[in-house]
């Protein structure tokens, strides 16, 4: 007698086959074995930061360079005419102590907003928030070893 000819055996067989049909299967790439860090894309983050610096550089050269100079050292074309010299933005020993919020205040509301001379004007109504943030990223990058070169971005 063939194994499928007895009733209880048939039932068992059918049950097994039905069970097999209902299995979900293990499809798809990278499911289940992923750790949280697996998803972060370091290259992408780096590229985004480089973008911010590039945009910030454009803004710096247009709005800030005339007083703060090519490398942020406070030696711009207009600096010699000012009673109070422009801040050396590449001086990491000083910049390290300046918080993000303070930097944002200076750019958006002028140097008078943090108790300094009024010579650095407020740009908050001229620049958008993202632009000011990009500018801050650029300024933080000044004087950090070799400044991140915008030419490398291509």
């Amino acid at each position, binding site marked *: 007698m063939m194994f499928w000819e007895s009733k209880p055996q048939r039932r068992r067989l059918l049950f097994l086959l039905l069970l097999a049909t209902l299995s979900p299967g293990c*499809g798809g790439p990278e*499911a289940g074995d992923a750790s949280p860090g697996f998803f*972060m894309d370091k290259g*992408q983050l780096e590229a985004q930061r480089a973008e911010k610096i590039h945009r910030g550089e454009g803004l710096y050269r247009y709005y800030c360079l005339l007083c703060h100079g090519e490398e942020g050292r406070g030696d711009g074309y*207009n600096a010699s*005419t000012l009673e109070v010299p422009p801040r050396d933005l590449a001086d990491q020993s000083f910049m390290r102590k300046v918080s993000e919020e303070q930097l944002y205040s200076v750019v958006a509301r002028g140097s008078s907003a943090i108790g300094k001379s009024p010579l650095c004007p407020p740009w908050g109504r001229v620049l958008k928030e993202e632009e000011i943030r990009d500018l801050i990223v650029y300024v933080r990058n000044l004087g950090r070893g070799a400044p991140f070169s915008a030419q490398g971005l291509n």
Partner: protein
Amino acid sequence: MYQWFAILSLAVLVSFEATVMWDSRREWKGWQRAFETLEGSLPLANGTAKGKGDSGGRTKRRPDRNGAYEIRQIVLDPLGRIDRCPTCHLGIDRSELAGVRQPFRSHPGPFLSQHPPERFGCTSCHRGQGMATRALAAHGRVEDWPEPLWTALYVQASCEKCHPISLLREPVFLQGRKLFSRYNDLEGAPLLSEGRKLFQERGCWACHKVEGYRGLEKLGPPLSRIREKVRPAWLLQWLKDPRAYLPRTIMPNFGLNQQQAMALTSYLLTLESATPSVTPSALPYPGSASLKTVAGGAASIEIQGKPRLENEPSGAHLDEAASERGSQIFRRSRCVSCHSLDGRGGLLGPALDQIGDKVNRAWLIRWIYDPRSYYPSSHMPRFRFSQEEREDLVGYLLGKRSGEESTREEELINMARKDRELIREGRRLVKELGCFGCHEIPGFDRETEVGPELTRFGGKRVEELDFGKLAGKIGFTPQAWTLKKLQAPRVFRGTLKMPDSPLSTEEAGALSVYLVSLTGEQVPAAYLHRKKGRSSEELPPQGAFGRLLRDLRCFTCHSIGEKGGDLAPALSIEGSQVTEEWLSEFFRRPNFLRPILTARMPVFNLSPGEIRTLAEYMRVVLVDDKVDQDLDGTLEGGKERSRMSGEGAQMYERLGCRGCHQVGLSGGSIGPEMTRVGARLKEGWIFQWLKSPQRYRPRSLQPDYGLSDHEARALAVYLANLKQ
């Protein structure tokens, strides 16, 4: 019998099982599962239970663990597209996922909020195959799909079909470049913007037809009377290598050999224009102080009969003193604002370093006297010089030579000009090379462009492009082909005719983005986004003022309304901004306003009558009533004004204006001097300007201090009092 039944039913069961398993192993389900893992691993925003609850800003339901994985699609009826991209790109609108790997990364920039997917979908900008659900197919990287995905740089090319530019018949000088549209810049698409500008500026449209680029002013000067203007030896050298004479010229190098260049030279030198070389429009300047000298000296210019202008020895009239005077006239008139000499100067006109090699003396005198009699759409203004001044200036300029001898070539050319065969060859070359695309040439008015039409270049499939010798050596994409073509036009085959026109790698990249954007695709009207500007049908200024404007070519640098360039301040409301006294004095002797700028207004030597015309028109017509509002009416008497003035003085210190502006001897050199600002600017204008500078000049360095009306008025009163 039963065995067969058993086997068949088993086979059916197995195939059923296989189908179910295959369906459950779909690629996109795997991605959705992976996304779940990602979400589970994210740091929580508000400390609620892991994975459950609402995180703000999401529009799509998370697939839950019961296996409710589904295909998500956007159906766009107006565009005839169905996009299933959100099936795998689940994090596209989640800004916290900016740094994760694809396909879960969020969309960069403000593009998604500006172009909501429900209305635009994905493939209308990124292309690819929207209905596919496997990555490779969805990205269009399969055989026969005509629209593969565009990468990050080229996706800008999609902007063109909804954000087209509108072209002007006459070029404007914007940002120092000669462009045919004011609206090239598209925020968020820098490569496309640059590509558009290059296409207009370099004259690609002169040889390649593109829809919309019709009836534009020709980029080069007319050649109908070139015989009067240039020395034949120069013309030969120029045709062989334009950039040897003018490094920045847009005239391409056609790679002509000696024979071809000689043929072209002899042909061009036979051209005659229907109009006589001296036109009656060249009347002396009305109201000009040098009227008498002009009329008296006219005979020396040569007016009647055939001008003896050809092959004149140029050294004949030079002498030291005259050359020195000419040099002073050159400096005084500020010709360097437009022309460069010894590497310094403007770029609007050609460099004058070797002008003595190029032009004939009589032509140059005539040119300075009245440029538009030779070249009607030239940007050169008509300076008011006396005859002696003209001669001195020309004497000085013709001293600028390279010092190379060219007599042998002159002889050769003289012989060639009698060779009719060669002349015919020259004519044939003109027809073949398409010189008439950029230059007006008699007899070639109705020719069509010589290069292939590019209106639908972006719609070409890569199989339609001829890779020639480089087949298999560069990427098999339209972008790679275009980039290669722009950098080395004849590299694909030896028989190609496109001339060399140097582009840097960045320029070639930008231009290739623009070229692939020319798909000729029509979008529904609701999606078209045209820049709103005043109608270009508006009349330019008329009457005596209009004539002066055209004579002096003010619109090269200045603008009134939508007409004109942006190299100098806009004059649309100049009458409300400055006092008439200052304006008249400025026309007489334009002085430096802003120390950091290098370009200066040239000195035209205008007569008092002409100055009066200009100043009066500005005072009466170029005004803005809102700016002119009488502020004094609200302040009673001198005491009130002096109180406000005191307040204003304090504000001037408090705001740190001295950092950029000079008053007396102290202050910065970024903005205009304030010492006598009250004599220059009107009080109403100072008020409006201080309230919101960027409204009048969007890129101004003047900060917006957020002043109240009272504060701005106080400052305006103070500044208007600074008149000494």
